[in-house]
């Protein structure tokens, strides 16, 4: 629980979250969501929540991102906002 590391990763998480909802390309949105998920997993590992970090790494950064990419493949990739 080193507070400098915590603060740095939290700032990166907020930046990634704002970027994930602002890009105009849905594939980029899905990949940024995967990066956000990885940073969350890192934060929980720092807080000694190892089971939750393991689950988020496999579910959020693994399978969830693949579901998003599959759905973007079947619909459209461009968006207006």
């Amino acid at each position: 629980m080193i507070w400098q590391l915590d603060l740095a990763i939290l700032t990166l998480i907020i930046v990634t979250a704002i970027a994930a909802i602002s890009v105009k390309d849905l594939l980029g949105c899905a990949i940024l969501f995967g990066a956000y998920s990885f940073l969350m997993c890192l934060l929980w590992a720092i807080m000694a929540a190892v089971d939750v970090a393991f689950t988020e790494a496999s579910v959020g950064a693994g399978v969830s991102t693949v579901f998003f990419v599959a759905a973007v493949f079947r619909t459209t990739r461009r968006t207006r906002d």
Partner: protein
Amino acid sequence: MKTVGIIIVFLAGTLLLYATQDFPPWGAPDSPASTHVSPRYLQRAMEETAVPNVVTAVLADYRGFDTMFETTVIFCAGIGCFILLRVFRQRPEDRYYRHIATEITLHVKGGRIPNKSSEFERIDALWTPYDLIIKTVCRILVPFIQLFALYVIAHGHHSPGGGFQGGVILGASVILLAISHNMRTAIDRLSEKADNLLMAIGVFIYTGIGAVCILLGAGFLDYRTLSAVLFVDDIMARSHGIFGVEIGVGITVMAVMISIYNNLASAGKQDEGL
């Protein structure tokens, strides 16, 4: 809509920020979340269940009902995706075939050539070339990924892990096969009927262990009574009961992840995709 959104977000944010003044400071060991039930779990988990990983012990034994209904929720999500997306009756549509000897691509409208024909191979409509390096490396990697996933499920008593994590990694190994090769290759390996059956078998194992505990004379999911069936003492019976339900959870989670991916990537038709 954006101004309404900003106003709502500001109001909700201010309300929540005002509420933080009652929170205990971060990391205090006497905060209300850590003083009522959880010290009892930490002190008694090792001597009552012989499982050092307290999170697994609480998840599968002390709060076993929650995990059973969570497995049911995952199963319902798999069934929901199946019902929403799956289309069965397919009108004769356009297909693309490639003659292997001369590498001519045919566009066949309406008819079809059987999939196992030795002169023609079927390629997807949005065809991306399947690379030989990617195919070979992923084919070699898949058994090792599955071995690691089985290790995660079985070692959940002593290290971080357990049923969910191992099940997701098992599902990811078959999804890797579907991405690197063809979706038809992955469906040949694990057919849709077997996948749907596995979804139900996992929930059945979990509830079945609970029902066996009732048949042996105690309450639902009370693993101590399993000592009559397994011929060990009460504490080890609880440890084995936890392992049994973790297996059930792992099977269901694997099958649901594969099923949701197949339905999403092919929009229900299960023959082409990504």
